[in-house]
């Protein structure tokens, strides 16, 4: 799966959790915090994405991502293993 496809999945779930972002143009450099997601929102978005990818990964492993693009990178690496 390409990074862009994984990024789009993160965006899809970010919009589900934060419907006010529906028209927003997401960039790899965006951070969920700056987009208004609190800690619970962020863990929800990540968990929904993990389920969509059937990836059984503890959330802690994803914590080093500093923006949405890096999160997509880490998920892609895990997905490709």
């Amino acid at each position, binding site marked *: 799966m390409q990074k862009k496809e994984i990024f789009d999945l993160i965006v899809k779930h970010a919009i589900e959790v934060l419907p*006010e972002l529906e028209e927003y143009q997401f960039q790899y450099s965006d951070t969920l915090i700056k987009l208004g997601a609190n800690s619970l929102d962020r863990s929800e978005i990540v968990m929904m994405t993990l389920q969509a990818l059937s990836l059984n990964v503890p959330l802690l492993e994803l914590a080093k991502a500093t923006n949405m693009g890096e999160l997509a990178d880490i998920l892609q690496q895990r997905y490709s293993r």
Partner: protein
Amino acid sequence: MTIAVTGIGITTSIGQGREEFTQSLFAGMHKFSVLKREGRQLPDDLEHDFAPFIGAEISELRYPDDLSSKQLRTLSWSGRVAAVTAREAWQNANLDSVDGHRVGLILSGSNFQQREQAVMHRQLHGNETFTRPAYGISFMDTDVAGFCCEYLGVHGFSCSTGGASASGQFALINAINFLESGSLDACIVLGMLTDLSHWELQALRSAGALGSERFAKQPEYSARPFDKDRDGFIFGECCGALVIEKAAHASARQAKSLALITGWGTFIDGNRNPNPSLEGEKSAIRLALRQAGITASDIDYVNPHGTGSLLGDAIELEALAQSYLLHARINTTKSLLGHGLAAAGLVEVIVTIEQMIAGRLHPSRNLQKPLNDRFFWVKSQPEICKIKCALNLSLGFGGMNSAICITQ
């Protein structure tokens, strides 16, 4: 101390909001049918000989514009109904004019979101690692309290008060205690929709508490408290909200008093089991009357607990008779709404107040052969009745008894 009721919110299967609800109430409407909400029936792939569960469900909940889909996403069904209902009571009482630090919010009941959990378990079976982080907060009943406090701006105090099927009244009495102690000026009490799943329904059926095998094919006849053909309680979704404050506080801020709560009594049987106690019920009634400074002869109307249980209804009528209340008018709210469990006690206080305000008594459904003909039953037609003093009873498993006196 006299406690004033200054706001009411109500959501039931027969109507949302005071106006729609009271119209349906006096018209004797009902919505009993086979339960349809997800997780309420035994799984489709399970072979069994049981009849489907019957009850009364809210068909469509209308949300106010200031509740966003983001806010609602992780809020349970009980929480959604509570938020809408609490808002109505809040606006009804004009509580925006009271400092939120002096306002409390108390929920009734415990473990009232069971169906949500049953649905989640079914959806995530085999995928347990993907359990939503939000569930870590929402499985606690007080998540609903947190939501409502944030939504309405409550900063005084908040908690939940459990007391089985007497939870609604127990929460109200708890709220009164906060007003009496001086720690709050006003309190909103929420009678919580108890969201049963097939797990609780099946257990209650097996325990002999839940009907209706007898009317499995005629749900409209299933809810029949105090009737000789009753076969257990019938579940009903409902939620009530009451704003209470000291009468002096209400009068100082020129809030309209809808009713006064003048007496309340509780009695704990010291008995874990579900069986009723004649002495416990009589004690709660006696304590409430004594605190109100009245005698049984002053009571014009009784809103009983009456669930439709075989033993419970009979014992309750005996308790009322032995408390010298045979002269009072009496009807059965659960014959229209079903049994709301944690909500029931508060919803029935609201029904009592609405009847006092309207000067009318709502009809009872399916009361064709009353268990005891010595009582002054309101049967299939509403009646005009000026009520000066009313008594409201609530009884719960585990020896919980409570009674409340209400005047206008």
